[in-house]
Structure formats: structure tokens, C-alpha cells
């Protein structure tokens, strides 16, 4: 793949023997870092974030929910890197464990909605007519709600819990969000000769929809999903800040900035700074990674270069 998009420069290189391949890996990595430094930075942070999310309980120095009345709102120190909150809980441990929730929810939401929206987009673009009509009207229905207002309504109707958040965040993305791009791509892809060839060989619609079209819309799905992760975390933290996230005392970046903590921001600014930085850094790295992936994968951008 990379042989083609480097304007044929790669093709001119001499054939490499397998023993030389290993030596090329650092060089290719070096080139990637030079070309997409921000994307590599984003990837690095995302990898660290996943590691932190998985191994949270072993990294966190304290129990994130254990209140210590003897250490209320202590400023950051060698004992408590990010200080302690209004109940004497260790902010560093809460930020670490908050990664679990944010990463867990956002990956689940994006994985489910990427599959659903890709399938819906392909079906609508492939058949057009009434499935397409249905998808477009659904999209209009969701676009009439400001996203945050929709989340507020769903979460308060269903009771705040992890399950509710999953439903509320997945619905609009799965049914309306990404499928529009996939639909448009499918409409042009299905006119390609290889689809015609598949049909001529007797492939059924189902076979074409599940086997022949997905590989070609995959770049769009991947790019959409990566930036989707960022926006899910933003939405989740906004709900948390409004007090509609996961119920306390579960550590939650947005939730830790809401409620009682707000009255202490002025005297204990670390309560406001660290969870907010965690959200910002996470969303930033997903967006940086998504941007680089778009440069590398998006066929529309690739052909233009």
C-alpha cells in the first residue's frame, strides 16, 4: 500500500531480502515520526491511557473512594501528587481510575456504533429507495435535537448509570452520526467494476454488502471512530459535570468537577485542574491520532496528493 502512495519512489528501491526487513523498521518508524509527529504523539498517549485504564488498580497509590477526614483538600505533595479532594480522597488515584470509566465507555460506544452505522450506511447506499429514505429521516430527527439536550433527556428518563450512558451515547452516533459518510461512499463504490464482477459471478446482495463493500469503506469507519472516541469522552464529561454521569462515588473525570467540589475550586484549584487536564489530554490525543489517520487513510485526501 505504501509502495503506491509515495509517488513510486518506493517502487524504485531495490528488492529487500527478509534479513534486511528488520533493519528497515526503525527507519520507517523514524519517517513516520517525522511526517506525523503529532499523530505519533497522540498514538503514544492513547497507548499509555489504555495501559493505565487496564492496570489502574495496581498503579493507583490509594483507594480512589477511600475518604480520609485527616487529609481534606491537601495541596499536591509527594504523598498526594494531585492533592486530595473535599472528602480527603487522593485526586491522583481518582484521575487514574477515571481513565477506566472514560476509556471503557468510549471504546464500547464507538465499537458498537461504528458497526451499526457502517452497516446502516452501506445498506442505505446500496439499496437506496426506502432504507435510504428511512435513514435520512432518522438523521433529521436526531439533528433536530441539540446533542447535549438529547443526552440530558435520555439520561434523566432512564436514571443515571453506566448502562444508561452507553445507550444515550450510542443511539445518536449509531443511527445518525457516521452513516451519512458511509452511505455516500457506498453509492460511488457500488458502481465500481469489481462489484459488477462479483454480481456477474452470482454473488448475492448480502454477500456484496458484507464482503465486498466493507473493505473499501473501512478507512472512513476507522477515521470516524477515532475522532468519535474524543467526542464521546467530551460528551461523557459534560454529563458528569452536570451531575448526570455515573453516580458517585465512582471516579469520573467530569463528575469529579461537579457538585460539592465546585465550591472549593478557588481554595483548592487542583480539584479543577487535574481531572480537566486528563479529559483535555485524552481528547486531544484521540483527535491528533484521528487527524493523522485521516491523512494516511482517507482515499479522498490520498488521491489529491
Amino acid at each position, binding site marked *: 500500500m505504501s509502495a503506491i502512495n509515495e509517488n513510486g519512489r518506493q517502487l524504485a528501491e531495490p528488492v529487500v531480502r527478509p534479513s534486511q526487513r528488520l533493519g528497515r523498521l526503525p527507519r520507517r518508524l523514524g519517517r513516520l515520526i517525522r511526517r506525523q509527529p*503529532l499523530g505519533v504523539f497522540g498514538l503514544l498517549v492513547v497507548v499509555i491511557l489504555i495501559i493505565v485504564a487496564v492496570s489502574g488498580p495496581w498503579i493507583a497509590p490509594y483507594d480512589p473512594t477511600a475518604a480520609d477526614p485527616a487529609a481534606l483538600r491537601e495541596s499536591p505533595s509527594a504523598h498526594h501528587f494531585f492533592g486530595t479532594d473535599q472528602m480527603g480522597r487522593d485526586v491522583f488515584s481518582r484521575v487514574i481510575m477515571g481513565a477506566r470509566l472514560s476509556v471503557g465507555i468510549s471504546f464500547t460506544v464507538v465499537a458498537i456504533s461504528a458497526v451499526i452505522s457502517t452497516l446502516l450506511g452501506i445498506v442505505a447506499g446500496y439499496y437506496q429507495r426506502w432504507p435510504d429514505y428511512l435513514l435520512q*429521516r432518522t438523521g*433529521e*430527527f436526531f*439533528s*433536530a*435535537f*441539540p*446533542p*447535549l*439536550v438529547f443526552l*440530558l*433527556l*435520555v439520561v*434523566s*428518563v432512564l*436514571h443515571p448509570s453506566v448502562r444508561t450512558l452507553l445507550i444515550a451515547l450510542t443511539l445518536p452516533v449509531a443511527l445518525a452520526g457516521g452513516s451519512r459518510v458511509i452511505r455516500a461512499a457506498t453509492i460511488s463504490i457500488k458502481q465500481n467494476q469489481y462489484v459488477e464482477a462479483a454480481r456477474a459471478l452470482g454473488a448475492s446482495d448480502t454477500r456484496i454488502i458484507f464482503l465486498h463493500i466493507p473493505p473499501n469503506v473501512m478507512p472512513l469507519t476507522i477515521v470516524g471512530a477515532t475522532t468519535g472516541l*474524543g467526542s464521546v469522552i*467530551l460528551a461523557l*464529561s*459534560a454529563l458528569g*459535570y*452536570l451531575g448526570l454521569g455515573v453516580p458517585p462515588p465512582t471516579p469520573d473525570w467530569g463528575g469529579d*468537577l461537579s457538585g460539592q467540589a465546585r465550591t472549593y*475550586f*478557588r481554595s483548592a*484549584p487542583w480539584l*479543577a*485542574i487535574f481531572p*480537566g487536564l486528563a*479529559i*483535555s489530554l485524552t*481528547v*486531544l490525543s*484521540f*483527535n*491528533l491520532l484521528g*487527524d493523522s489517520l485521516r491523512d494516511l487513510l482517507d482515499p479522498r485526501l490520498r488521491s489529491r496528493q
Partner: protein
Amino acid sequence: MQAYIIRRASFLAPVILAVSIAVFFALRFMPGDITVILLGPNASPQQVAELRADLGLDKPMPVQYVNWLGHVLRGDLGKSYVLGNSISGEILDRLPITLEILILTLFFTALLGISFGVISAFSQNSPLDYLVRVTSIFGLSLPGWWMGIMILLIPSIWWNYSPPLGYVPIHENLWANLRQFVPPALVLAAASSAVLMRLTRTVLLDILRQDYIRTARAKGLQEKTVILRHAIKNAMIPLITVLGGQMAILFGGAVIIEQVFSLEGLGRYMLTSIAQRDFPVVQVLALYTAVVVVVVNLLVDVSYAWFDPRVRYQ
């Protein structure tokens, strides 16, 4: 042109109706009984029954919906369960606040988004371009409400400064009013101007490769004229679409930003009403936002047809 507008407008009513039905019935499945909130847990069953009859909650839900819709269509938005005051009066009181936030935000979005987009496109791949693009990713990534908290927090810790408390109308004291409204508008505009900036850059880069730009330059036009009359004018269509699309997001953003900056606008009204299970208010506000968002989308489509004659004849 007229036929096009009518065709597009005919889609409005079903969407708005669907939104109103969805919100109306969803609210009735919300946990938490309004009679308990109003009367307290110790009310006698008779009191509860009276209140339910009073509020019209004893009738079947579809009947309730039709009654409500009938009143709304006749211009009667009803009364708040909790405060007992007229919803339309409350909306009129709060509308100037939300409206000022949204107008200022749109202004900053257009100003920052388009100008930096132009700068970035005309200095493609230079350090300046890189800087603008990286800044825009920051704008997209940092949560607006957190930036708001920081904007309030930092001056208050360092200089003991805080914006004036309580809403100051624009005609009473312009300076105090702007001190209240510019920070939330800038914070809200951070994300949307980043979106607009990135789009402006992409669209302009595309346009700058077109033949008519080369022609304009070849016939000796000043670079300024090329940019303003030929390049930006043609970039306006997609920009307007995105600016219109941002309206819905800004509406939601206003909810949270009003909370951060303690501004008593429609967003806060929505939040407290949802928390207090004040159905009539939530229904009206949801309907209201849906109408505004859908109408803005329509205006965007119409302006599209206005700018680009090809759209009209499809």
C-alpha cells in the same frame, strides 16, 4: 426557488411533530413522581388525586398530548408545575441572555474561524499554518465548560477579579454586560471556530487550485481582489452550511456554559426543569429548540440555493 423552499419546508412539520411526541411520552416515563415533588411524601391519596386531576395527569396519555399540542398551537405554552408561572413569560425574560450568548458566539466563530482559515490556507505548510492548525485541534479538544471554569478561576486567584454578578442588560451598562458575556461566548466559540477554520482551509486550498483563480491572477488582479472576490466568495457556501450546523451544537453548549458562568438563560431553565420534573417546561423548551434548529437548517439550505443556482434546478 419558491417550489424548492416549499418542498424543503414540508419536511419540517413531521420532524418537529416527531420530536414533540418523543419528548412528551419519554418524559412521562421519567422516574420521580411530580405529585411527590410538589406535595411532599406525606400527602393523602385524595390530595394526590386532586392534584393529578388539576394538572390533567389523570387522562390517558394520548389525550394529554393532544390537549397540550392544541394549547401550544393556539399560542398557550402553559404554566410551570413547580413555580406556577407562565412559561412564555419566563422564556421572554431569559431569551435575551441566551440570544446574546449565541449571537456573540456566532460572531467570534465567523471572525476567528474564517480569518485564521484564510491565513492558514494562504501560508500552506509554513510554520504559521502549522501553528494555526495545532491551535485549532486544541480548540476542538478542550471541553468548553472546563475552559470556562479556568477562565473564571485563574483571574480570581491571581488578581481577585470576577465578572459582575447578576445579569446586566446590554442597554444599562455595555461594559459590564460585555464582561459577563464575552468570556462564555469565546469559550463556546473555541470549538466551533476550530471546525470552521479547518473547513475554510480545506475549501480554500481546493479553490486556489481552480482555473479561474489562475485566470484572475494572470489577468493582473491584485492578490487582495483575488482572495476576497474570487476565492472567499466561492468558499462561502460550505462555510454557511457548517456555521448553520453549528447552531444546534451551540444550543446544547449554551446549556452547560450558562451553568458554568451562572447566567440565567434558557439553558439553565432547561436544566432545572429536567431536575425538578417540570414536564410542561421541558416539553416547550425541547419543542422550541427543535423548531429553531430545524428552521436554521432550512435557512441554510435556502441560502445554499441562493448562492448556488445549480441547487435550485435539481
